[in-house]
């Protein structure tokens, strides 16, 4: 998939990290601007059309969380938070404040590029398909899926843990209920987040999700296999 050269704004106070990141992002085909603090960021945002903001959490002056909240109120472009804390709490708070993804330092350049592509693609989805405009919660058959917090709760209210890939796939299903989705479509819709060398096939992921949400995984009700290669998510999905 080719993406027209996207303009990324990196808000990062450490000049060496900014220089290194800029270098490999440019090599990966992105246009990159750099702002060391929130004021420089505001200037750049006024002057250029930015497709994605890479936002450091610890900044001199206004910190990343506050910037994130402010950007969310005024802009629609995706935000990826970068942080050296790597705390689960920061991750959840960051995502609740409207960040689209969260990467812990030190990150690998390959991972960062993969995440940026995934977020940009999802951003395109939002504008094209608009399933995300419903908000971050989906409810089906008593199950609650919180996309922002990346959590699934069963009808008894207990949290059911999914791996990242499983969660992404379930969100794809929940956003397209009662439609037949082929393996290729599912692969395309979930690609980007988990792109490791041992990435599991859609079939494996579906079977794992069934283990976790179906009453009888051998006789599935929620995710049904459709002849001629595909799956269908059968419950009615509400977005409260």
């Amino acid at each position: 998939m080719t993406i027209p050269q996207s303009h990324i704004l990196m808000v990062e106070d450490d000049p060496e990290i900014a220089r290194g990141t800029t270098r490999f992002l440019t090599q990966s085909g992105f246009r990159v601007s750099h702002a060391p603090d929130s004021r420089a960021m505001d200037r750049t945002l006024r002057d250029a059309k930015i497709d994605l903001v890479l936002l450091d959490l610890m900044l001199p002056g206004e910190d990343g969380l506050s910037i994130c909240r402010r950007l969310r109120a005024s802009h629609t472009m995706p935000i990826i938070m970068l942080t050296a804390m790597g705390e689960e709490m920061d991750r959840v708070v960051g995502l609740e404040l409207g960040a689209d993804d969260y990467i812990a330092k030190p990150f690998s350049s390959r991972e960062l590029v993969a995440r940026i592509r995934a977020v940009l693609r999802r951003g395109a989805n939002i504008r094209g398909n608009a399933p995300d405009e419903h908000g971050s919660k989906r409810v089906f058959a008593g199950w609650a899926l919180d996309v922002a917090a990346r959590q699934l709760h069963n009808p008894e209210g207990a949290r059911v843990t999914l791996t990242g890939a499983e969660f992404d796939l379930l969100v794809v299903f929940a956003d397209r209920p009662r439609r037949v989705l082929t393996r290729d479509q599912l692969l395309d819709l979930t690609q980007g987040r988990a792109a490791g060398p041992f990435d599991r096939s859609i079939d494996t992921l579906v079977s794992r999700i069934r283990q976790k949400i179906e009453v009888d995984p051998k006789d599935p009700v929620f995710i049904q296999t459709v002849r001629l290669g595909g799956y269908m998510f059968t419950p009615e999905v509400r977005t409260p």
Partner: protein
Amino acid sequence: MKLSLRSMITDRSILLQVAAVLMVCQLVAHAVTFAFVVWRYERPDLLTGTSIAAVQAIGFRDVFQKSDAAERSMLEAAIERANPHIRFHDAATLILSRASILPHAIVDGMTRARPELASVTSLVAKPVGREGDFAGTDELVAIQAGAGRALVFDPDQGGPRINVPRVVAPVFLIAFILPMLLLPVWAAMLLTDPLRRLAQSAERFSIDLDPTPLPEVGPAEIGRLAAAFNLMRTRIRQLVDSRSRMLAAVSHDLRTPLTRLRLKTEALPDGEEKEKMLRDISAMNAMIGQALSYLRDQTTSKALERVDLPALLGSICDDFSDAGLPARFTGPRNVVLECEPELLTRAVSNLVDNAVKFGGSAVVRLEMRAQTEAAILVEDNGPGIPDPRKLLAFEPFSRGDPARGMAEEEGFGLGLAIAKQIIERHGGQITLHDRAPENGKTGGLLVQVLLPVLPRRPAKRIAEGGPLAATACTPSPGAPL
């Protein structure tokens, strides 16, 4: 069963103790009052109406006896004028009624208390004489005054007479027993309520560092205790906060140069050296994370959540196998426990990580040991840990083999220490065992984690808003997305 009185007193709640003490005090007070009254009743000569009348009567008799015979009729008239409840009568005209004398408790009591009264003939009689005297009075006492005269008096006069109420039960119960039981409980609750709030607040604080200070009210001692507790809590909070800030700063300050290093390394031309450097950087980062989480987990606390344990264990194993590391999960479904999911995930991940690192592969099994206890068993095929080192393995910064030094992937040796810390925080236990040998091979290590879980509930077959019937699932060719 024999309970020592001491333990019965000291082991109960303060509320019960205070209430009991108050009840006993009231009981004793009432008993003393009651005994006093009864005693007074038995000594009617001191204060009661009967005694006053009797003492007066005896006094008048003495005056009468000492007086001149000529003055006696004047004296009688004077005494009667001044004391309406005392009358002189001709002794011969008194109708004696012995039968009604005997059960008369007042006379009995009088004679017992004042022996000199025993010498007088006490009579209960209706005097024949002037109409209107002693109207409405049934019981009279007469004493011989000499010279054929008798002094008749009404024992009820001259002061109140004590009557023990006949119908006591309901009134006594409501007016006496009930307040005696309820007032001490109420008073004790009033006294112990600040203590109860203090305990509650301490519990909440120990769980989530709840910042609301305790009201410093109640009895002076408890008020001081609350103030001391608030002070201690403020200090602990400051300590925790400064520690969190320090950890965040350390984390940030270590990871920022590490990020620079990584970026520079990635810019190097590909090769074995570059791979090794990247691996070292990852290891350093993992160690920073390990050390920080070990320190952080001792102080921070998040809310408990109900979590599906098989899903959590399965996801951990899937994450490992997705990264190319052999880890497998087996066990029953639908086991729910209350935990901090991120912490429990870290604990089990550490165990699986060790098993994969030292044993080549990990098998995680979930077994129910009781209605509310589950066992998580993490097994590997490695060399295991010799018995003398099993306990030491849980010590922070310990290593399986002291001779081996710091291996490349081993980290700080905090994995088991962190796991133990987390498991114990969840009310569980973690122990190391040898796996039973299989087919002549030594078994490897078995880590057993016992955790309290919620009682299991039967799974619901069809939930609300049920899915479509299976017949509706025919494919629609080329369904658009």
